[in-house]
């Protein structure tokens, strides 16, 4: 693993930017932090099967991926949200035509510390907690403790998705915002660590990050519906209410190496990797 990485690194240094630009032998993949492990796993398997071809994967956030695609510094942008109108018009100005390809599904888990007695919430309660109108755990059946809200930084597609689909409940004209007191952490792992060590914290991230140190909340659409836990089966069935598609974006119709890589990601092998990295495949 390490050796391979070293060889790739050296090859990249030797062949340098010329190759990255021409795209003959290597692909630059950039974007969503949620998808960086998935992209990395794809790249490793792909390079194993296609020696002599290089795939470099970097994170930075969905927005970072889009701006790199627009400025031509990457071939594939990974994104956990759809591209915005503003970004499309900016891309068109530069002669770039972003094409969306759905590659996987992701359930967003809402997590608390295992010591927290609360284990199920409705979407309304979640919206109340994250906008700050519910500020004490006792209002949702927990202890008399102040709720510590953890959110991802605003360059995260997960942040944007959660705001649009939980806080604003899909209403495009909604004005709801995260509470000002929400802590903005720079990675999903940072949220996982803080939840693991803080009994009054609540956070959210892709289900891949759930471990024994956090407890995933069962979520219901409204008070009269069933409470659903974020598991792969429930996301595939569409029962779990907070799940989202994951995309990759390329310029125009994929060609050459980029097409080959995307085909690899979309078929059996690639989708098996999706399942292994705790996301939900789009084909069964």
């Amino acid at each position: 693993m390490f050796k391979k990485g070293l060889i790739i690194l050296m090859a990249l240094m030797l062949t340098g930017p010329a190759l990255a630009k021409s795209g003959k032998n290597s692909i630059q993949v950039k974007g969503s932090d949620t998808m960086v492990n998935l992209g990395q796993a794809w790249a490793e398997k792909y390079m194993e099967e296609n020696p002599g071809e290089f795939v470099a994967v970097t994170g930075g956030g969905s927005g970072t991926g889009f701006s790199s695609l627009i400025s031509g510094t990457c071939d594939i942008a990974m994104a956990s949200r759809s591209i915005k109108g503003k970004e499309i018009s900016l891309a068109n100005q530069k002669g770039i035509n972003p094409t969306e390809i759905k590659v996987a599904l992701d359930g967003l888990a809402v997590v608390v510390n295992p010591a927290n007695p609360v284990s199920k919430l409705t979407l309304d309660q979640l919206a109340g907690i994250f906008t700050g109108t519910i500020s004490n755990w006792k209002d949702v059946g927990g202890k008399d403790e102040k709720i510590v809200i953890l959110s991802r930084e605003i360059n995260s597609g997960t942040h944007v998705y959660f705001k649009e689909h939980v806080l604003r409940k899909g209403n495009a004209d909604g004005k709801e915002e995260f509470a000002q007191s929400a802590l903005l952490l720079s990675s999903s792992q940072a949220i996982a660590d803080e939840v693991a060590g803080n009994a009054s914290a609540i956070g959210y991230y892709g289900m891949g990050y759930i471990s024994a140190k956090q407890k995933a909340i069962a979520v219901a659409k409204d008070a009269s519906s069933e409470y659903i836990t974020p598991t792969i089966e429930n996301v595939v069935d569409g029962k779990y209410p907070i799940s989202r598609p994951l995309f990759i974006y390329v310029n125009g119709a994929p060609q050459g190496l980029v097409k080959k890589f995307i085909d690899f990601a979309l078929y059996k092998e690639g989708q098996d990797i999706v399942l292994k990295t705790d996301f939900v495949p789009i084909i069964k």
Partner: protein
Amino acid sequence: MRKLKEFIIEKLILICGLASIFFVVLIFLFLLKEGLAVFSTVSPFKFLFGKNWYPISDPPQLGILPLILGSLLVTLGAAIISIPIGVGCAVYIAEVAPANLKEILKAGIELLAAIPSVVLGFIGMVTLVPFVKTFFHLPTGLTALSGSIMLAFMAMPTIVSIAEDALYSVPKTYKEGAFALGATHWQTIHRVMLPAASRGIVAAIMLGIGRVIGETMAVMMITGNAAVMPNSIFAPVRTLTATIAAEMGEAVVGSEHYFALFAIGIVLFIISFAINVTADLFLHKRQ
């Protein structure tokens, strides 16, 4: 021939001397060009005193008062911690410590300065943050206080080494004179040495504070980054620097958000400029 050589060298040095000013002016002009564009959508008053920072909402709310106060609060906390310890440490090294201990302490201080800030931030995140949380019974340890303590570590090496130099450069005769008049060691230090070195010590403090206000990585990791009006040092804050670092990657080039981040850069520039000017004024008054 010798004259020509002399001439060339003189001019080369002149160019080197002017280069730094030239670059500062260029940077400032670039900041102004990009940053002032934000004021076509939001008034300077609303920008500086607005209490809501929601840059990616539609329409964006671009008020940076919580960020300014966050930066100032963290810096103030760091100054309160690092100035007494730093100056005390400098006095001890320069005046009291035996020669061999002096060398060990100086090496230690230099080592502290050599630790990259991201490493300090990481250490703070896993050790200091949980400690602050349990010690003060707070809902979270990601607070301004944690940031202040960690930044104090970063300011200390600057303060100690420059203040110590200032103490060394006090003429030996001052000290001898004080002793000759029958002053004790402590009286000599606080009545003679400290006042005589005060200009250098103020410079040391100012440079230390300058380092703190511009620090980014460590504060981003341990202050929680909540853009809320800070009402206590035990609450999370979001600083100016962390905001630029966290959001620059996402900002769409040419958007209001992008210009607003450059305008924050101008504010930071003005704050550090003000710190330097105050230090300068103070020094010249003393002279």
